[in-house]
């Protein structure tokens, strides 16, 4: 029993490390045109992996730790606010969609991608006290859908390969 717990804890630590690295890798990928809040959301892979392998509690822990650590290392209080708003909304949507069980991993991931961008835009609208950011809504929803689609495929492939292994 203890061995299982130790394994789980170390696996979650590993996932957190992967989330942090992916967050860094993401900054190296140039985006040709700038829209506020538009991101690849690579580190969401780790959160989604935790969601499918362990459950929503573990995924939430990974998310919060990732946001706080990334924020304190590379960002500031404002960037923590954005990531927290986007990430939490994304996870809530993913948990709901997974619970409904009519979506596959790709659908869950797409809902997360869209919700993430919506959450970030909402935080931006509150912080800047403006509604004019609504112009970015369509492009952010579409980009979240597309990144979510590809991340969902990657997550599906990773989970397939790890099938049957005790994690």
């Amino acid at each position, binding site marked *: 029993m203890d061995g299982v717990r130790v394994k789980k804890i170390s696996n979650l630590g590993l996932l957190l490390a992967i989330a942090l690295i992916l967050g860094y890798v993401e900054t190296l990928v140039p985006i040709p045109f*700038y829209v506020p809040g538009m991101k690849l959301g690579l580190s969401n892979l780790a959160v989604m992996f935790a969601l499918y392998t362990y459950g929503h509690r573990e995924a939430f822990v990974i998310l919060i730790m990732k946001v706080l650590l990334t924020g304190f290392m590379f960002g500031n209080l404002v960037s923590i606010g954005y990531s927290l708003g986007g990430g939490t909304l994304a996870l809530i949507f993913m948990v709901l969609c997974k619970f409904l069980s009519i979506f*596959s991993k790709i*659908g869950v991931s797409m*809902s997360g991608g*869209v919700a993430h961008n919506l959450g970030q835009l909402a935080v931006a609208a509150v912080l800047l006290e403006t509604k004019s950011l609504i112009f970015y809504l369509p492009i952010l929803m579409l980009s979240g859908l597309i990144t979510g689609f590809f991340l969902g495929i990657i997550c599906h492939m990773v989970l397939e390969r790890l099938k049957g292994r005790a994690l």
Partner: protein
Amino acid sequence: MKVIKIADVLLAVVVITLSVMIFIFGKKSEIDGERVQVFVDGQLTETYELDNPTRKTYSFEKGNNTLVIEEGKAYLTECDCPDKLCEKMGSIEKQGEVITCLPHRLQIVVQGESEMDAVNF
């Protein structure tokens, strides 16, 4: 478990339809703007005429942004925010267009005749 389910496709269709609708109904104005409003921390601080070439540097705790107005366009330059995304957003000239510098919480908005208020939009 199938890789893609019908609900996934439906979700994608709904999101695409929604964004296309928002894009059409919330379409950016094609009317040339007349004024540039500068917002700091969400507060309107200054207004400039677009046809009057101007150069103004704003200083904040964390650094500076320079607002340049020339040839009826406005843009930000010489910014020392970490990501320089406000510079990458290019220039704005149409009503309702916005440039935002999140690190410095600075926002410039183009306004026109119809006074489409960015705050109460």
